């Protein structure tokens, strides 16, 4: 089992815990963990806080090395980690600060349907969705991109597939970065990554990735919900996937390159998975350009899946997706590094913000927020585990000041896979979920058992912490009625 972490944690208030700089040699800034007192006990059970301290050693880091309440033990960065480096002062970019599943993220589709409209057709709908959206280990897409098209998708992301007819022309307005992160350069992507990517675009994948049908159960802030176009009993569709093998290969390639680069630049970090190079170095620039390609691949991926969701609803309801009101509410990345301007110690600085299992949560008035939402702030999409449903939050001004406009990304695992396997042995997980009113269809029974609800923290407690800490606010809670897993 994992070792307990006994390092110092200074309580700032009920929701903030500081790891002082003195804790570890090499820490350039202090660490901060957003959590409740109860959660802190669980967080100490493994080495996640040590990883927060390790990230604080990254050259050029400013502010604090942060961890959101869904923090758990990762590799290199903790999951739930946020770190900004000043790129004009030699700040680094670290592939380990983004992770292998580059632009793993969440897209939420809203409909004009209510639970009563969907319930009678649910089984059919799930069957059709499962047939239309490739999922599972080694799943290949229904379409295969030519190398030329793949390269276009790397640069234009969701916009490219929308132009090809997979989506409504305005879908792009409701995607972080409009679905195309600038700075992507396919020349920086290896042939291996392209080989893995060409057949995987438009696939859900496996593991914790899923497609979920949900119903708005609770509205916390009706005024903001109205701006987002959300109402009670409304049916929503949540898509959680990323850049598949394409992103995994890009991360692998650049981690290897960074191992050598660190020696050349004389950079020392406490964990090799944190290997990095200054953002301005050739290696840093190349990684960012390749990472942007993977981010755009992921947005193209979620766009294609959106199209097949619409087609599936059309098939089942015999009405057009327009008529059913299937629109993109928003699409967020929760594994990414971005160049953003933030005020640090009273000065505006250009930062490379790493979000590893953390979501951008920009407040009202920010330029990066779609115009229709700008008066209230950005929608933040927080999936729970299979059984508990999801929250939609809104970004805040305090997040802009305190967390570089970032918040949590999900429930966060708390049980290892072998432990989940032990406690779920012999259990019929689909029947258990069905008793709770959730229809589940999965490619792999093993995945279902590894992803049992009790393997995760309570997402309700996670979002409570970010709300109490003031870095985002709850807008609605949606309960799942059907889940498709890879």
């Amino acid at each position, binding site marked *: *089992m*994992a070792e307990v972490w006994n390092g110092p944690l200074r309580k700032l208030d009920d929701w903030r815990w500081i790891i002082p700089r003195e804790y570890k040699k090499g820490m350039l800034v202090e660490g901060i963990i957003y959590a409740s007192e109860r959660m802190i006990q669980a967080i100490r059970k*493994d080495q*996640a806080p040590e990883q927060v301290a390790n990230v604080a050693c990254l050259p050029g880091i400013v502010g604090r090395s942060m961890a959101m309440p869904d923090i*758990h*033990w*990762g*590799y*290199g960065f903790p*999951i739930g980690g946020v770190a900004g480096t000043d790129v004009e002062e030699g700040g680094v970019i670290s592939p*380990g600060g983004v*992770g*292998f*599943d580059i632009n793993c993220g969440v897209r939420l589709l809203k409909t004009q349907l209510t639970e009563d409209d969907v319930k009678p057709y649910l089984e059919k709908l799930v069957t059709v969705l499962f047939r239309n959206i490739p999922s599972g*280990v*080694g799943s290949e897409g229904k379409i295969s991109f030519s190398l030329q098209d793949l390269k276009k998708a790397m640069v234009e992301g969701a916009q490219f597939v929308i132009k090809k007819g997979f989506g409504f022309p305005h879908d792009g307005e409701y995607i972080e970065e409009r679905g195309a992160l600038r700075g992507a350069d396919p020349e920086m992507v290896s042939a*291996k990554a392209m*080989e*893995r990517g060409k057949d995987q675009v438009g696939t859900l*994948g*496996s*593991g914790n990735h899923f497609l979920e049908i949900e119903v708005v159960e609770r509205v916390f802030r009706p005024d903001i919900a109205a701006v987002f176009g959300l109402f009670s009993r409304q049916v929503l569709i949540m898509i959680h996937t990323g850049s598949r*093998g394409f992103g*995994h*290969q890009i*991360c*692998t390639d650049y*981690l*290897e390159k960074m*191992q*050598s680069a660190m*020696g050349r630049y004389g950079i020392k970090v406490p*964990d*090799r*998975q944190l*290997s990095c190079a200054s953002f301005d170095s050739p290696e840093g620039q190349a990684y960012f350009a390749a990472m942007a390609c993977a981010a755009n691949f992921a947005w193209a991926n979620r766009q294609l899946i959106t199209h097949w969701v619409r087609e599936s609803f059309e098939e089942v309801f015999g009405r057009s997706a327009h008529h059913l009101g299937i629109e993109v509410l928003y699409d967020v990345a929760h594994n990414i590094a971005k160049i953003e301007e933030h005020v640090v110690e009273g000065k505006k600085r250009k930062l490379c913000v790493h979000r590893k299992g953390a979501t951008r949560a920009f407040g009202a008035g920010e330029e990066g927020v779609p115009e229709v939402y700008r008066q209230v702030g950005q929608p933040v999409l927080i999936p729970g585990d299979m059984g508990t449903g999801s929250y939609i939050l809104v970004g805040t001004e305090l997040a802009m000041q305190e967390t570089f406009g970032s918040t949590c990304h999900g429930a966060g*695992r*708390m*049980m*290892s*896979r*072998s*432990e989940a396997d032990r406690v779920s042995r012999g259990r019929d997980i689909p029947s258990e979920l069905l008793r709770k009113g959730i229809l589940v269809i999965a490619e*792999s029974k*093993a*995945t279902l058992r*590894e992803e049992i609800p009790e393997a995760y923290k309570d997402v309700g407690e996670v979002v409570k912490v970010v709300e109490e800490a003031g870095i985002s606010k709850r807008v609605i809670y949606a309960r799942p009625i059907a889940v498709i897993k890879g």
Partner: protein
Amino acid sequence: MATEKFRILDHTADIGIMAWGKTLAKLFANAALGMFSLIGELDRVENRFTTQVAVDGNDYEDLLVTWLNELLYLFEAEGVLLKEFTIQDLGQYYLKGIVSGEPIDVAKHTIHRVVKACTYYEVKVEKIRPQLWRAQVYFDI
């Protein structure tokens, strides 16, 4: 312990393995076997696919991670489950080997999970006593 090839290490979100080998070559082969046993049931994997693999690194740890990631690339790009790993040449710091297995057939093979990548987190390759090497590595799941 001398006969044990590998063991699974618990991790909250991911999975690690510890592997042993009388020689470095055996160690690298056993680590690969450990990784593929996380991916699928290897009992029914036959010998229908063989390829040569060559990788290099900055040190043995880097070489181990690069080797395992190369095999993951084969798993996904070629769609093969690998179960036999013969290291033909291993030096400072390069490796050449022949690996074999079978193209994945979902009707025949049980797949447990996808291993996204092999990480550098807490990676170790050590000689713990004469004629016994040990490695530790964590995977992103």
